């Protein structure tokens, strides 16, 4: 970066009229070369710093995208888990409805009662825990014909 004392002395000599045209041309060439070298170096330094900034920004963006991807994966996993449960429940409803149709069409009151008992909380399409208590105890109201 510091100017060479020799060219400086040369410039001073030239100003004093003690230097030929050839030497002046050499000095000018050296000065131009130095400017070019400095410009190239400056360009590289500027580009390096700029690229560092860009890389930092890109790293942040990549981190954000990875977090987003992770979130999407969790969402998809959760959705898949729910979609596995849903058809099971839907199949159960269809099966229960088929059983209910049979019970209604059979004319057997005890089967209808069992079908209603299956709707109680905690039962998943199974017969009542007492094995069909409604069958063991016919409804008194039904006997009375009410």
């Amino acid at each position, binding site marked *: 970066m510091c100017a060479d004392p020799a060219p400086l002395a040369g410039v001073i000599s030239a100003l004093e009229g003690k230097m030929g045209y050839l030497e002046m041309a050499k000095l000018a060439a050296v000065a131009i070369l130095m400017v070019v070298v400095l410009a190239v170096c400056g360009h590289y330094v500027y580009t390096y710093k700029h690229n560092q900034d860009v890389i930092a920004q890109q790293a942040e963006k990549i981190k954000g995208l990875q977090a987003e991807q*992770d*979130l999407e994966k*969790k*969402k998809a*996993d*959760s959705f898949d*888990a*729910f979609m596995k*449960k*849903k058809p099971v*429940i*839907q199949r*159960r*409803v269809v099966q*229960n*409805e088929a059983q*209910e*149709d049979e019970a*209604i069409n059979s*004319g057997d*009151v005890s089967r*209808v*009662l069992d*079908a*209603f008992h*299956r*709707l*109680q*909380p905690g039962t998943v399409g199974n017969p009542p825990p007492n094995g069909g208590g*409604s069958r063991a*105890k*016919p*409804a*008194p*109201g*039904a006997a009375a*014909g*009410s």
Partner: protein
Amino acid sequence: MGAAAVLNLPLEPQPVLSLTDPEITAMYKASPTGTGKVLKFATEYKGWGDIAGAAIQQHQEYELTLFSGQEKKK
């Protein structure tokens, strides 16, 4: 805060078509078709409620995975 931040929405107990055996028997004898419709509606409603409960539960589990992920990174 972690998992404590997951909103827990308490569901009321699932409504049940509450009928006594004599009521059901009388209803069936009066109108088997109508009883069948009530029964099927109640079954479908129970199924819908089960799906809704599963959806809520799954969403809560999803939120828990978010927080557990953050805790792991720390």
